[in-house]
């Protein structure tokens, strides 16, 4: 092994090396950045513009948002959006300049051009194309050899010209041999030259000026710093980040505190929104934002938000702190919901979702929360004035517009109309049909993998309730397309994204999500992690079917005009091996709106698979009655089979964390 390394003295290799590395980084980066800046931005802008046109709620949301919150939004949005001069763009620009410089250097470097000349290409020498036939090659060779053969050269040439002519002739002969003679051809293919292996040199593609005594020190320092300092630094930073935050972006300490609270939670304690807020206020995330404040302060801030009070901490205005804390609650509550599901605690999960609504709308949980989420409502008048029991939006819309104005204490006509618009655009779910479906099967068979399919009608509180039987059965059928059978959940992805919610008191713009929880009726324990539904068409809400004017649904009612929402929830477990029925409770809770929830009970009837073969049927006919008997036994003996079903370990991050 050579002790002396050859460096790139003539600067012919390292520019290529550097160019390749540079282009490998810069080209994808440029493309992605271009996409982000031009295409995605356009799409987003279009989306929001369209939404503004279509969705009145988004517009009203903007209108009712206080200037304080708007300032806050601007401040925190700007950080993300100033993408013209961000570091990524600077890297791209610098990179391309470097590329240009390198290309210029390569093209002006004689050594590189020389070495490029040295490459032996027999086709070029003979002046034929790469796909030329043997005959063409032969004729080209003959022509050239006549011209350059030493015997046929004109006499009046100088010595030098003679020599170069002779050399060309040698080259031509070699090229011809390379293409025709077997042995020479092999040499050419193997080593790139008809004479066999050429002298090759191995070296390090570092420019020699880096190795010179002065700069070699810099190089060594660079190596050391990158391998000893920078690399460990970035790896440890990345590792800490992944270790500090759970999959749901919850700080590990926060998740730990949630887990310990749920472990120590006593059934005698009553789960309330206040309790959850107290638990939230111990979150590590808040402490990272504001290290000087105590959990008590955070609790006060959150309660201030819910009760719509101005916040002051130590006599100073703390509204901006409040907004930051409140905005963070989105992640915290989603994380907490996941922990609740890990503990299979449905009661807590439901209260968690109620807290979510309270924080998003900035109102406390009361019987009248549905009404208070509307803008302009006068609390005093609503509480004292109403004679009838009006706690829901649906009930509110049984009165005429004027009466509603009186009930809610809104005198201004425009404001009343805006309030009514908000009220009629809050989505409500009406259940049409719910079943357990096994793709490709008529019903649920033992140990099959069913999913829950819920057909709903998204409607407005203003609209007359449409009885389920108005919709023909075909509209509620599961699609039996091959694609749908293969992946039943794909169709849900095609639904439009939920529009921006009406939540003027929440510090950021947000979209409604429905969290779907599935629990067993037997012990009301949650079966699996929540499913988040973010896409559902709300086109029905704009349909005109005012319950105050339409008394009866006449013949002109066309079910085809209405869109039926398909909610498909994957089940994490198989159907049990035993026959019988299992009752489940499905809770679909909105994160943003009061009164937009659905709570239903479903029975999964596990039945014997249909007999495929007539003959088999005959053979087992005698046993059949037995099977039926045991069927009934199973039905009565339900509890046994169910408990087995319950014992299946639900995946839980929370438990894992607990173990840690």
């Amino acid at each position, binding site marked *: 092994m050579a002790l002396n390394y050859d460096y790139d003295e003539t600067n012919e290799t390292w520019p290529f090396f550097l160019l390749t590395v540079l282009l490998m980084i810069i080209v994808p980066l440029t493309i992605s950045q271009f996409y982000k800046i031009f295409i995605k931005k356009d799409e987003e802008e279009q989306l929001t513009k369209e939404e503004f046109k279509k969705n009145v709620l988004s517009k009203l949301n903007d209108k009712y948002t206080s200037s304080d919150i708007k300032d806050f939004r601007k401040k925190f949005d700007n950080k993300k959006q100033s993408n013209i001069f961000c570091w990524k763009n600077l890297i791209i620009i610098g990179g391309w300049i470097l590329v240009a410089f390198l290309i210029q250097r390569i093209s002006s470097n004689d050594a590189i051009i020389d070495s490029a000349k040295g490459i032996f290409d027999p086709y070029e020498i003979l002046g034929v194309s790469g796909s030329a036939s043997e005959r063409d090659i032969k004729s080209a060779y003959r022509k050239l050899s006549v011209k350059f053969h030493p015997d046929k050269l004109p006499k009046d040439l100088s010595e030098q010209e003679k020599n170069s002519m002779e050399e060309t002739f040698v080259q031509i002969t070699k090229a011809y041999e390379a293409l025709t003679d077997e042995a020479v051809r092999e040499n050419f293919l193997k080593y790139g030259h008809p004479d066999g292996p050429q002298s090759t040199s191995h070296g390090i593609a570092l420019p020699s000026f880096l190795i010179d005594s002065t700069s070699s020190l810099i190089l060594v320092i660079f190596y050391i710093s990158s391998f000893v300092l920078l690399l460990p630094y970035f790896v440890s930073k990345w590792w800490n980040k992944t270790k500090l935050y759970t999959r749901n972006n919850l700080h590990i300490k926060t998740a730990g505190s949630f887990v310990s609270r749920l472990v*120590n939670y*006593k*059934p*005698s*304690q009553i789960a309330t929104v206040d309790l959850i807020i107290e638990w939230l206020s111990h979150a590590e995330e808040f402490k990272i934002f504001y290290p000087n404040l105590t959990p008590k302060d955070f609790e006060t801030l959150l309660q201030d938000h819910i009760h719509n009070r101005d916040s002051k901490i130590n006599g100073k205005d703390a509204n901006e702190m409040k907004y930051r804390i409140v905005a963070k609650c989105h992640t915290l509550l989603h994380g907490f919901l996941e922990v609740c599901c890990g503990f299979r605690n449905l009661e807590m999960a439901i209260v968690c979702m109620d807290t979510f609504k309270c924080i998003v709308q900035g109102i406390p949980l009361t019987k009248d929360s549905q009404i208070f989420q509307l803008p302009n409502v006068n609390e005093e008048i609503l509480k004292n004035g109403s004679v009838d*029991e009006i*706690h*829901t939006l*649906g*009930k*509110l*819309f*049984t009165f005429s517009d004027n009466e509603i104005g009186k009930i809610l204490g809104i005198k201004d006509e425009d404001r009343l109309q805006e309030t009514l618009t908000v009220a009629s655009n809050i989505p409500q779910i009406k259940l049409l049909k719910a079943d357990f479906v096994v793709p490709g099967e008529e019903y649920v068979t033992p140990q099959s993998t069913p999913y829950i399919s819920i057909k709903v009608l998204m409607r407005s*509180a203003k609209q007359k*309730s449409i009885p389920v039987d108005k919709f023909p059965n075909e509209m509620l059928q599961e699609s039996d397309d091959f694609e749908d059978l293969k992946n039943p959940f794909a169709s849900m992805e095609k639904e439009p994204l939920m529009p921006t919610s009406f939540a003027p008191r929440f510090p950021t713009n947000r979209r409604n999500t429905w969290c779907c929880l599935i629990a067993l*009726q*037997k012990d*009301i324990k949650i079966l699996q992690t929540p499913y988040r539904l973010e896409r559902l068409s709300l086109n029905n809400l704009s349909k005109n079917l005012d*319950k105050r004017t339409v008394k009866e649904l006449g013949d002109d009612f066309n079910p085809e005009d209405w869109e039926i929402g398909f909610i498909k929830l994957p089940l994490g477990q198989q159907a049990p091996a035993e026959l019988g029925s299992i*009752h489940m*409770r499905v809770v679909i809770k909105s994160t943003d709106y009061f009164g937009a929830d659905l*709570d*239903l*009970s479903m*029975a999964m009837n596990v039945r014997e698979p249909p007999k495929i073969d007539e003959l088999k049927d005959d053979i087992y006919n005698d046993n059949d009655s037995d099977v039926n008997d045991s069927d009934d036994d199973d039905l009565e003996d339900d509890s046994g089979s169910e408990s087995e079903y319950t014992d299946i370990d639900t995946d839980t991050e929370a438990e894992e964390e607990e173990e840690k």
Partner: protein
Amino acid sequence: MASTALRYNPNNKLINDDSDSLTESREISIMQINKLSTAIISESNPNFTPQLNDEHSKMIKSLFESGLAMLKQKKMPEALKNITLAVDMAQRSRAPYEAFGIQLQEIQFMLRHKIDLSLLTGRFLDALQDIEFLMNTGMAQSDVYIRKSDALLKLSQFEQAKICCERGLALHPNEVKLKALYLEINRRLADYNGDI
């Protein structure tokens, strides 16, 4: 637990915690420990077996029976008062180590009467609390669900009533009363939501 403020009082043999970090759950735990130690200290027979205290049983029984007697005379409020007293006594005066199985049966039996009386006298919130207590002791008979749904219905908590009724129906699919109640709840719920 970082705090070391847990103190043992050698005179009354109780522990107490007067630190600032006293949380509600900690307080409950301390109370439970104290209750158990007082009960064991006051036991005169050192080789006791965890049996029911006859004296207490007698008192509770007599209180409960007087309540039932009142019920026969149609004096609902008095009957409720006596039975409530009996239930309270069963919960409070019994030592924590007394045979739990028998205690549980006793209290379940009395609570059911108490719930009925509360519902009759229109104390739905009390009834609801007792029903939840009863459910937590593992009772899942259909009549518990009927009573809970009914109480919730009377309290105009229709959504909760519907959920409770659905659960009752899931566990007891053939209960006619629950089915009737379910229809009623759905009707009231539709009215509550302005869908009629």
